[in-house]
């Protein structure tokens, strides 16, 4: 959970121990081709704010922003369960979501229940749009896949390398880049659309690249790679999968996490190769 470490000119529920009550926000995402819907559910225990909500003097507000599409919107609503609908083409990549309770009109003598004792004796004058409660900073990924590669195409791209015989990797771009020598690049393009080879791509192209990339992040003391879209996507895959979630994000664990992110590609590719052998009835060398 990320916390806000700046100060407000008035007490804010959810900020440090200003007010000892709960403002818990959660949402489920429905990513459609045309519409993206956030099914929002809010728990609020503070009686002052509940009362002000009833009187429509304050409101819930969702601040949604997507830096990649320069999109930002503040959506206000009163019910604790609410659906927020957005055009999917407003969003690409990381979308930041924070919920607030804000004032809908000036509140001259604001004094919420269960206020920290440090504030005793004070009353606060609140202006319209000022924040009175703040939820957790959260985000989700609105994925747009460009070109066909494999099911993890948003993580990787294959490029032609000027080198003659060496495969190289780059991790400082939006996707993990696998640079193939020219001849290999052409071979790759010839076979890319055959589904039977996908597991093999995962095992011999993606797995070493992802392992190296993760080790690079884990030993990246300057945090230069932490905000790269490919790493954010990995964190999201991990967050949404209970078994991957149990794998620790730590040095020397890159190969374990990589194998699980890619759905154990060595085993899958061996099984596919075996199937291919059976289909082609290739005689063995024994």
């Amino acid at each position, binding site marked *: 959970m990320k916390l806000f470490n*700046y100060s*407000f*000119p*008035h007490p*804010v529920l959810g900020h440090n121990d200003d007010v000892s009550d709960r403002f818990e926000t959660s949402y489920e995402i429905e990513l459609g081709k045309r519409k993206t819907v956030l099914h929002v559910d809010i728990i609020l225990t503070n009686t002052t704010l509940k009362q002000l909500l009833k009187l429509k003097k304050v409101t819930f*507000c969702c*601040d949604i*922003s*997507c*830096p*990649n*599409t*320069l*999109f*930002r*919107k*503040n959506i*206000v609503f009163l019910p604790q369960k609410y659906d927020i609908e957005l*055009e*999917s*083409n*407003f*969003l*690409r*990549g990381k979308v930041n979501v924070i919920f*607030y309770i*804000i004032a809908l009109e000036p509140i001259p003598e604001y004094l919420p229940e269960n206020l920290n004792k440090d504030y005793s004796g004070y009353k606060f004058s609140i*202006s*319209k*749009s*000022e*924040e009175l409660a703040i939820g957790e900073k959260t985000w989700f990924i609105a994925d*747009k896949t*460009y*070109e066909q590669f494999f099911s993890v195409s948003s993580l990787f*791209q*294959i*490029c*032609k390398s*000027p080198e003659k015989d060496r495969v190289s990797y*780059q991790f400082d*771009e*939006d*996707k993990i*880049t696998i*640079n193939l020598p020219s001849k290999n690049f052409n071979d790759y393009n010839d076979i890319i659309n055959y589904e039977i080879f996908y597991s093999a791509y995962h095992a011999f192209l993606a797995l070493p690249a992802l392992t190296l990339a993760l080790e690079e992040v884990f030993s990246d003391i300057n945090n230069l790679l932490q905000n*790269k*879209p490919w790493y954010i996507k990995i964190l999201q895959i991990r967050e949404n999968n209970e078994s991957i979630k149990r794998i620790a994000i730590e040095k020397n664990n890159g190969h374990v996490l990589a194998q699980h992110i890619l759905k154990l590609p060595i085993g899958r590719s061996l099984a596919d190769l075996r199937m291919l052998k059976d289909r082609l009835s290739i005689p063995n060398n024994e």
Partner: protein
Amino acid sequence: MKQIIFKSHYVSELMRDIKNGINVHMYSGEAVPISNSDTIQNIKIEAPESLKIIIPKTRNNYDVENAISLYESYKDLNRTQASDIRFWTYLSHTSYWKYLQKRWPLKNDEEINKRTILQHWFINGLSAKNLTRHGVSSLWWGSHATYVKDRKDPFELTKEFFSMLDYTRHLLSGNLGRNENYVHALLEFVVENPKLFSKFKEKKIRHIMRVMNFTAGYSLLGSLSKEEIKKLLKEQEKELLKIQAAK
């Protein structure tokens, strides 16, 4: 006619070469080589028959004219399409090649040239900052954020926006600048108060942006209407006059 764009791997290859100091010289020349295998068609984007581009001269960059013309040619782009690195990199390496060469002329220093090329010919990592620095996409996004259909001149705020570097560099890339109401309110306030901004305009705009950024730390300005934001800006009038008096 459908829009041609680069393939992702080609953008990465071009960018990797510049980062490694390869082919930097090409950006002063006629063009970079582009083959059919480096491009694809985006069938969802209609390409204009031609693009009206005014090549910058010593004393005039023609930013407003080029921004309006580009936006009118690609008015139907949605936000996802307009944040496609492949599309903007294709335009900067084809139709806008000569424009960019004149707009950001290269120097005799390879390191500076690498930075200039990565910043204006490429979007070096998708972000609001890089979209608003790229030589072509910045023109489109600047227009998109300031175009107001129901104004007598829908591009009136666009003209104000491209009149000053502080707007183009900082306004849209910041978190606050992504609020449409805020951007429109700020530009309208300046346009409607020509006397107030007749002197020390840059200093005054910087003051406003600083104050509004501070206010946005505890208030959700995006929940206010354009008129309400203008009222907050009006409250700064006295301070702004002091800046004038402090000559």
